[in-house]
């Protein structure tokens, strides 16, 4: 027992504490989980719940568009389908949230398949601009059949996620941390490597005997699933599923978050949401200038860090060993594994 504890401690010291980025992730987990001990301000919890929901959403965009390079400009479709299906299931089939949210996510997977199949033949900008169309088409349908969807007002009066604000907070935060870890693990697996390769050079992947069509569809479905969960959570937290979940600005916002944080990382978009969403709330002190400041912050940060904020910071505090490709703290003179000189 003591041996394993000591081994665990050694691994912790040797693998986590040596890199500032890993310490930052650890602190992020701890702060999120322990925050209610310090403050249970309902407004603060509300912002953090919404931030967590959108963090899942932004990370799911990265999983599809960042990793496989299939630029999806209509990601709100998954969010909206997830929200509306969860709402309809909750109201008409009287399913509790733990049933309606996963089923709503499955509906979003179905939506991913439906839009994925025609989109497979398109690439690049064509794909981006075509996917933009899908949520708008669905929105037209939502407005055209108000007896089912509630039209402009949406479907309201859904069940709460849990009884209390604190319960909501823990459910969404733990789900966010868990789902984002799963997404990060997916991108780190063999499947994730194939996703990377499809983005870099699809022809080469096909030449290697890999069915890229199947993997692209898989990416659409996975991303749709996670985005659908965030949509369902949003609907149940706000207790309303309205057409705002399908708006163009929703699709654009997720792209802004993900690219601002740095794509092809999963942690980048999550961090970006945790920076930008509370920032937008903070700008509420000057309501007229809120969106303008948001836009200007993005414009100026991009000018200096076109690859996104988080990769830029990570490059500043860590260097990659030229010989063994292992990351080191920027303050070290030699690599921590192979002792090659770092420069």
């Amino acid at each position, binding site marked *: 027992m003591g041996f394993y504890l000591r081994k665990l401690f050694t691994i912790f010291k040797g693998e986590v504490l040596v890199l500032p980025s890993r310490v930052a992730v650890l602190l992020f987990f701890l702060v999120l989980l322990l925050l209610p001990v310090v403050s249970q301000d309902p407004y603060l919890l509300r912002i953090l719940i919404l931030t967590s929901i959108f963090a899942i959403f932004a990370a799911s965009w990265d999983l599809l568009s960042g990793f496989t390079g299939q630029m999806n400009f209509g990601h709100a479709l998954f969010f909206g389908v997830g929200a509306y299906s969860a709402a309809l299931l909750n109201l008409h089939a009287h399913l509790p949230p733990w049933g309606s949210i996963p089923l709503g996510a499955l509906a979003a997977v179905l939506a991913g398949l439906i839009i994925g199949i025609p989109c497979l033949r398109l690439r690049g900008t064509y794909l981006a601009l*075509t996917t933009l*169309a899908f949520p708008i088409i669905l929105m037209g349908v939502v407005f055209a059949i108000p007896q089912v969807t509630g039209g402009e007002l949406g479907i309201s009066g859904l069940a709460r996620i849990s009884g209390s604000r604190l319960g909501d907070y823990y459910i969404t935060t733990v789900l966010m941390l868990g789902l984002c870890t799963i997404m990060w693990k997916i991108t780190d697996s063999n499947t994730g490597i194939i996703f990377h390769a499809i983005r870099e050079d699809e022809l080469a992947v096909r030449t290697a005997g890999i069915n890229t069509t199947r993997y692209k569809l898989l990416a659409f479905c996975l991303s749709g699933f996670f985005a659908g969960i965030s949509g369902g959570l949003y609907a149940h937290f706000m207790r309303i599923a309205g057409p705002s979940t399908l708006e163009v600005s929703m699709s654009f916002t997720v792209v802004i978050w993900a690219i601002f944080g740095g794509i092809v990382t999963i942690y980048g978009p999550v961090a970006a949401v945790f920076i930008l969403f509370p920032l937008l709330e903070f700008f509420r002190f000057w309501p007229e200038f809120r969106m303008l400041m948001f836009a200007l912050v993005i414009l100026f940060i991009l000018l200096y860090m076109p690859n996104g904020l988080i990769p830029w910071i990570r490059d500043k505090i860590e260097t990659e060993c030229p010989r063994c490709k292992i990351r080191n703290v920027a303050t070290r003179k030699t690599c921590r594994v192979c002792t090659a000189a770092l420069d």
Partner: protein
Amino acid sequence: MILDIIINGLIGGSIYALLAIGFSLIYGIARIVNLAHTAFYMVASYCIFVGTSKLGIHPGWAMLAAVFLVTLLGLISYKLFIDPIREHEAAVLIATIALAIALQEVMLLIFTGDYLSVPSLIDGYRTIFRVKVFNQQMLTFGAALAILAALWLLLKKTRLGLAIRSSAVAREVATLMGMNESRVAMITMGISVGLAALTGAVIVPLTTLSPFMWMPPMIMMMAVVVLGGMGSIKGSFAGGYILGFAESLVVFLIPMGAFLKGSVALSIMILVLVIRPQGLFGIAFEEER
């Protein structure tokens, strides 16, 4: 009824064609997906509003001034925000979205969200087959055709047009042939934004102004560009009229059509793309590697 459909289709189609050609020009030359394109159209409309309602100058002069000012604004914002990050396609994409939002918010601050309108250039109407056609509608359609013709002449008959078209086909070869690529991109950006401003100028007497007026035409414009084929002027022209007529047919023939017009037009685009992934007139590029 039929004439109503035709008039609305022709005007809507011309506007979409004008916007789409401007958007597709800058995409073809510099690979910039300028999502702020219709935001410049919105700014131009507001400039004309200020000129006619606040300063009291003749609408014609106000339009010229608006086109000039907005082109200048477009070039400045291109130099400041787009040019330094041109190598990063994703960053350019959200920089243009942020630019559009910034322009929208500035207009919202100055003019508030109220709906405003601009007097028409010429008053009155004439009756064709017992249907009232406003002179302004005829003028808008005529002006749109004239601008399209002028653009066609510029692209096909001048040396600048040759430079633009060749940069669109093969950027590297054009550079090797001694064309200043960044200057061509700059000039094209100017033409593109100028076209957006001109579109705003011709349509503004027929619509109401609001800071959010850029969003719906932007989506249709992108649908037109994709439908016609990226970078193809002919395609944008045809696509503009196809979607313009589709919209006006849906509005007049289907109940609840006003809600569904966007959906139907975009569904047509998706259907075409499923059959022809490169759009109607687009060239199937070899995979860029």
